[in-house]
């Protein structure tokens, strides 16, 4: 495909394991790989920036620079923004073609994987994937799931500002204390890092996962419409609104190296040739830049770092090309500003460097923190923090809980993320029910809840009933979604075992479907035993057993058949569940636990 301007890599020469560095951005994605001491960018139609845009048309999928001359309303863009809301929510709905943010992102990841394979002339599955530092659990695991579904083996998830700092540390030999200011298309991150010989350590992170270049474009468009057309942006219809914002974005880019531009702007019948000065741009976005500066100040304060001890800002993200950003930072903080490495490419570059070192060994270590506090809900709807924000990862914390009613046999646990005291002001990550407790007087059971935040920043929660002495007697009921652990195992084992000619993506999808089904059935096992005949139960158990064996193979069709079988055999049972009252199972004794 697009391998023209770079000499083809010679496979024989490199004995190193290759690992892609993927920066999945709101506006553009970038992918690079380190080969023989050199970073090579995977190009899409000869461009390093791959627009994160998807188009479904005539039963086909088009991505990035493949898309030409399409009407803007057909395009799906800024899909990354949906991850901070709900990555499983359907955002594209066209008859039978329904897609979630994860489905759409999966297409982008597949496209990037294919581009890389075409260029490298070999299979490549390993990657280091970057995410905004301020992304929460849901968003992190959502992005990871999308990459897994594309057949990518995500070896590490790292934070975008951290990746950028890694690149500066290695490429530019920067040493000292730095503030990484990362203003991307949809997110803003700031991290304080200490770069020492061999160790790059994040001391703290702040940000806003809903503030980025897209918002600057909207503000700019608002100003232009108001000033020259006396129209409110929100009052124009959607298609025209998108077109106008896109136009203003291109004007913004032209103003990067000019004081003013003359542009034709059309709003319905009204067409005007207007002279737009950079001052108008600056005025309209100033407030947002001030917001980012306040976040930087808070972080310095929180980490007890005085600005005089910081050696400089490292600028990351396309929006930091704006002169006003540099000016404001300079005026406010009066320290050096570094932007030698291309702010659009530096994150992917750092990820590729890190991936190379992870898989081939290195002297450099990257230490990061968790951006947001994790905890659970306690009595009165308050959040009890278990792992506070800016804790280094990995982190394991345990807390003992007890019941507050006599004979209580199950406990509901709500997992929260955020900084507010009241539950409802925080992000609810998950809710699960621990059942199977031995009935005892209130306050006697000792339930040890363990939060384990791994080095990717992904959370695993487990619980042990200490008083019964048995370790795994508790049933954690959560949704049937596969955990990142399960997915990782599934993907890496499929990659290892699968024959060359197999469609890895389809295989992984089928296996995920099967595992989900098994999880679903396991979750309702106590009910199954109550509602099914012994014969039915036995048949279901038998199919699950076969399925588990087949999951270790790469026989997609056999797994598919078993899924159909299982669906068929549980149809009867599924109806019974709907008929029976769910509360019979959970029990009305469930209550929020209080801390012991």
């Amino acid at each position, binding site marked *: 495909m697009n391998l023209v301007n770079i000499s083809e890599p010679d496979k024989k020469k490199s004995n190193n394991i290759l690992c892609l560095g993927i920066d999945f951005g709101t506006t553009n994605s970038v992918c690079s790989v380190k080969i023989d001491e050199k970073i090579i960018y995977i190009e899409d139609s000869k461009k390093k920036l791959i627009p994160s845009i998807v188009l479904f048309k005539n039963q086909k999928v088009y991505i990035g620079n493949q898309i030409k001359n399409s009407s803007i309303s057909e395009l799906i863009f800024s899909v990354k923004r949906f991850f901070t809301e709900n990555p499983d929510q359907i955002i594209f709905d066209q008859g039978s073609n329904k897609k979630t943010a994860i489905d759409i992102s999966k297409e982008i990841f597949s496209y990037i994987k294919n581009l890389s394979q075409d260029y490298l002339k070999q299979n490549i599955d390993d990657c280091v994937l970057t995410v905004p530092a301020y992304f929460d659990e849901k968003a992190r695991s959502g992005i990871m799931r999308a990459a897994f579904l594309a057949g990518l083996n995500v070896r590490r998830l790292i934070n975008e500002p951290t990746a950028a700092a890694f690149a500066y540390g290695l490429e530019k030999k920067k040493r000292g204390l730095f503030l990484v200011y990362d203003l991307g298309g949809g997110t803003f991150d700031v991290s304080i890092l200490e770069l020492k010989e061999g*160790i790059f*350590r994040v001391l703290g992170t702040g940000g806003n996962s809903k503030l980025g270049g897209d918002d600057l474009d909207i503000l700019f468009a608002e100003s232009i419409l108001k000033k020259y057309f006396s129209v409110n942006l929100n009052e124009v219809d959607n298609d025209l609104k998108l077109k106008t914002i896109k136009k203003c974005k291109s004007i913004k880019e032209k103003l990067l190296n000019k004081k003013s531009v003359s542009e034709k702007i059309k709003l319905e019948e009204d067409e005007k040739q207007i002279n737009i000065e950079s001052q108008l741009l600056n005025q309209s976005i100033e407030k947002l830049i001030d917001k980012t500066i306040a976040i930087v100040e808070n972080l310095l304060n929180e980490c007890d770092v005085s600005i005089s001890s910081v050696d400089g800002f490292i600028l990351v993200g396309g929006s930091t090309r704006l002169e006003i950003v540099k000016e404001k930072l300079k005026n406010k903080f009066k320290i050096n500003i570094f932007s030698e490495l291309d702010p659009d490419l530096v994150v992917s570059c750092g990820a590729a460097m890190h991936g190379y070192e*992870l898989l081939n060994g290195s002297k450099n*270590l990257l*230490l990061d923190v968790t951006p947001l506090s994790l905890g659970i809900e306690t009595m009165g709807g308050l959040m009890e923090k278990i792992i506070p924000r800016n*804790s280094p990862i*990995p*982190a*394991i914390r345990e807390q003992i809980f007890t019941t507050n009613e006599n004979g209580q046999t199950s406990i509901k646990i709500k997992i929260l993320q955020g900084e507010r005291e009241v539950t409802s002001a925080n992000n609810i990550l998950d809710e699960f029910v621990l059942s199977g407790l031995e009935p005892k007087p209130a306050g006697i059971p000792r339930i040890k809840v363990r939060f384990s935040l791994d*080095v990717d920043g992904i959370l695993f929660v487990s619980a042990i009933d200490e008083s019964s002495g048995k370790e795994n007697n508790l049933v954690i009921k959560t949704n049937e979604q596969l955990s990142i652990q399960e997915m990782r195992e599934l993907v890496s084992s499929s990659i290892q075992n699968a024959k060359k000619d197999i469609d890895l993506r389809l295989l992984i999808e089928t296996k995920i479907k099967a595992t989900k089904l098994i999880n679903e059935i396991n979750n309702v096992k106590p009910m199954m035993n109550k509602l099914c005949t012994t014969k039915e139960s036995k048949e279901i158990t038998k199919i699950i057993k076969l399925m588990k064996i087949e999951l270790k193979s790469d026989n997609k069709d056999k797994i598919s058949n078993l899924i159909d079988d299982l669906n068929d055999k549980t149809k009867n049972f599924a109806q019974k569940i709907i008929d029976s009252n769910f509360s019979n199972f959970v029990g009305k004794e469930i209550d929020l636990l209080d801390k012991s």
Partner: protein
Amino acid sequence: MTSSKNCWSCDKRIGYKDFVCNACGVLQKPFELNPFDIFSIDKKFEIDAKNLEEKYLELQILLHPDKFMNASQEEKNFSNIHTSFVNNAFKVLRDDVSRIKILLEYFGYQITENESFQDVSVLEEIMELQNKSMSIESESEKNKIKSQLMDKIEKEIKTVSQLFNEKKYKDVYKSCIKLSYLQKINGNLK
């Protein structure tokens, strides 16, 4: 306490506190260790922050999951747990209040969380500071209170140090409570 253990992988006899087997190089199972012992530093209140940080980073280089990317699943799991322990111990030791509590426990002083704090004059002092810090109106006023707080914290830390030397653990605990209030007010001022 045992001073040695068998390596889970090659069964050689190794030191109880060894993270890595010196015979086969395999990472050992996680084990409970006093935070001071994790970093092999003296169990006393005064702490050399720079030395602690150096030891922390040394252990990260030895134990961090990134160093076990190509290792067995067991070692990967162990590395995750070891690193979490080290992160936690580092945090505990850097914080004056939690360091005091660990030392008190080590010296056999029983902390009873519900023990009411009865020193009225101290309570009044704290309440006054608390009220002042809640009704700050100007930056200069804030700085004034901040420096007042810092003086008090510094003084209390000296007292704790002295009391530890005199083995007056009950008084150490009293000072510790005061210190934790002062630091809380200081934290809220940020």
